[in-house]
């Protein structure tokens, strides 16, 4: 990194932190600090978008497209369905009841223990996710830039804590607007630079054809398969439940739109996401596909994770790895020659070999390259089994550091850190609000004053920030970071969503029935998830399907238990909302 990159990176991050502190200076009431309450629709919309788009989105997603193609975009088809349901049903009730957290509604509808169960499940899953949100960019940046991991964890965490503690929900909202501008500006600049660095005869059409040849351009998959993580059906059913739970019941998102100044601002802010999220994810994946095309004409390392390369070169397997590197270099040279000829044929220039033959040669060379990479992964694992051999999360950052011009490297690093800060800020803000409103104020100090609520909320933000940094220091890499976050969410979200679905739509079910149903459902879902992910030879359900499973189990059992019980202590939804 050059001095200009450091200046851009530090200036961007310092501006965001200072802007957040400056815009929210002065004394705030609990309503202002915890709820916000005066945000316009574009602030709500950008805040919701920035909360969901973490650093993982910008590191993992292009890498996912580089290795697996564009299919991941299907995952977001559930989002528009979910936000419309939330706009129709959830927002009017949250707004009418003037709740600070989503879980407050559950006590009004059911009882205290159901509210507490949902808020504790949220605190567990979001507390873990907050650690990963900090850790994910830190581990990757530390590996490629040789920065100390623990210091990176601390720097990201502390920057977020400064303005989140200082200004609460409003500080989170105002900084997320700046962060989204930095993020989208940086990604568009990266895309333009990738395309301009392709050979002259590679038009966009030719680039997409080449990517299609390598099986990167299959976007929609209509085949129903439980083994396949991403297809249209898992998106419409599995992901819809995940999105409904995430946007409707996860306080880190609910708090974003509850800060809207009116129902109209909340709804338009959410619909803004329903409209733009799918094309935005498509664009980020397309960046990854263009990076793939770029690397068809340029050298790649045998493994994109520099820490993995370093470990194996310092082990007894160094000679074997060097042999693989030599083979990799000769495959790349041959592949680049064929690729150039193929590009020329696609652009209508005369070539000696039939384009179909060239395409087949490329396929053979890609298979040889992948086989070589696989052998390298095996050596890395033998050298150090604690190092992540799956290098897809390192692809985009490798491109940024090695092929972008001075200045833009600093901007793209600011993009990644801004994204990490924006989602972490929402998480800490929501964890603090839930701890203050649903736990502290409800159980410990029912008569807490306004000033005390603000003070406690600040302390809880600080506490959750410290816990997130501590967790980030212990977590290790999963198959893919973005999937780890979705996996943790899927284990808890189904049950929480089931509770809310019963609350909103099944008026006859009361607190006792839904509470027992939720506890049993959570135990079943967690058992299925653990067996499926961590026990060899046992396959139950891919994680996306845990969302509908948890929701159906909770709803089904709640209805069944209620039919067995008589009486209860619930309030019907009409009574609550009147």
């Amino acid at each position, binding site marked *: 990194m050059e001095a200009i990159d450091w200046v851009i990176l530090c200036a961007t991050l310092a501006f965001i932190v200072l802007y957040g502190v400056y815009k929210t200076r002065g004394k705030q009431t609990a309503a202002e600090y915890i709820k916000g309450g005066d945000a316009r629709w574009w602030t709500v919309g950008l805040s919701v978008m920035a909360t969901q788009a973490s650093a993982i989105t910008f590191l993992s997603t292009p890498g996912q497209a580089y290795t697996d193609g564009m299919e991941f*975009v299907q995952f977001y088809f559930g989002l*528009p369905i979910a936000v419309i349901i939330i*706009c129709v049903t959830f927002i009017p009730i949250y707004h009418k009841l003037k709740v600070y957290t989503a879980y407050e509604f559950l006590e009004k509808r059911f009882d205290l223990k159901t509210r507490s169960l949902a808020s504790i499940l949220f605190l567990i899953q979001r507390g873990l996710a907050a650690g990963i949100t900090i850790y994910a960019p830190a581990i990757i940046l530390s590996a490629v830039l040789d920065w100390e991991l623990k210091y990176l964890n601390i720097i990201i965490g502390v920057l977020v804590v400064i303005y989140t503690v200082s200004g609460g929900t409003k500080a989170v909202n105002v900084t997320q607007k700046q962060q989204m501008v930095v993020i989208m500006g940086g990604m568009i600049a990266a895309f333009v630079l990738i395309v301009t660095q392709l050979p002259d005869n590679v038009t966009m059409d030719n680039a997409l*054809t080449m990517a299609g040849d390598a099986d990167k*351009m299959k976007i929609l998959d209509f085949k129903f398969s439980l083994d396949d993580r991403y297809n249209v059906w898992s998106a419409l059913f599995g992901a819809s439940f995940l999105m409904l739970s995430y946007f409707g019941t996860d306080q880190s998102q609910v708090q974003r739109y509850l800060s809207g100044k*009116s*129902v109209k601002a909340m709804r338009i802010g959410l*619909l803004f996401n*329903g409209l733009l999220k799918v094309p935005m994810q498509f664009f980020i994946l397309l960046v990854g596909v263009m990076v793939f095309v770029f690397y068809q004409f340029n050298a790649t390392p045998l493994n994109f994770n520099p820490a993995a390369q370093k470990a194996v070169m310092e082990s007894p397997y160094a000679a074997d790895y060097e042999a693989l590197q030599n083979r990799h270099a000769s495959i790349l040279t041959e592949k680049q020659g064929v690729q150039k000829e193929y590009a020329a044929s696609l652009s209508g220039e005369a070539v000696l070999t039939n384009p179909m033959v060239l395409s087949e040669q490329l396929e053979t060379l890609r298979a040889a390259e992948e086989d070589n990479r696989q052998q390298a992964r095996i050596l890395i694992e033998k050298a150090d089994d604690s190092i992540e051999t799956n290098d897809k999360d390192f692809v985009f950052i490798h491109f940024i550091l090695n092929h972008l011009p001075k200045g833009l490297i600093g901007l793209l690093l600011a993009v990644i850190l801004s994204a990490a800060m924006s989602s972490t800020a929402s998480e800490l803000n929501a964890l603090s609000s839930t701890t203050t409103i649903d736990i502290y104020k409800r159980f410990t100090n029912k008569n807490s004053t306004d000033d005390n609520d603000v003070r406690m909320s600040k302390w809880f933000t600080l506490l959750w920030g410290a816990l997130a940094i501590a967790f980030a220091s212990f977590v290790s890499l999963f198959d893919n970071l973005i999937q780890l976050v979705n996996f943790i969410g899927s284990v808890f979200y189904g049950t929480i969503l089931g509770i809310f679905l019963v609350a909103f739509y099944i008026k006859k079910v009361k607190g006792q029935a839904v509470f027992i149903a939720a506890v049993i459902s959570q135990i079943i879902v967690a058992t299925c998830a653990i067996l499926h992910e961590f026990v060899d030879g046992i396959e139950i359900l891919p994680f996306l399907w845990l969302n509908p499973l948890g929701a159906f189990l909770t709803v089904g059992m709640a209805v069944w238990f209620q039919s067995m019980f008589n009486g209860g202590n619930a309030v019907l939804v009409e009574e609550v909302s009147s």
Partner: protein
Amino acid sequence: MDSKKQEPKGLYSKKWNTAYAMIIIANLLFAIIFYVISGRYGGN
């Protein structure tokens, strides 16, 4: 019911239903574009 009367004006109006329909239609259009792109480049 009384609760309906107390809700902000136009909470369930035709204007909102149109907005929801537009979001669905926009996303269906995206799906169609993706289908066309898959057909053009994905089946090579």
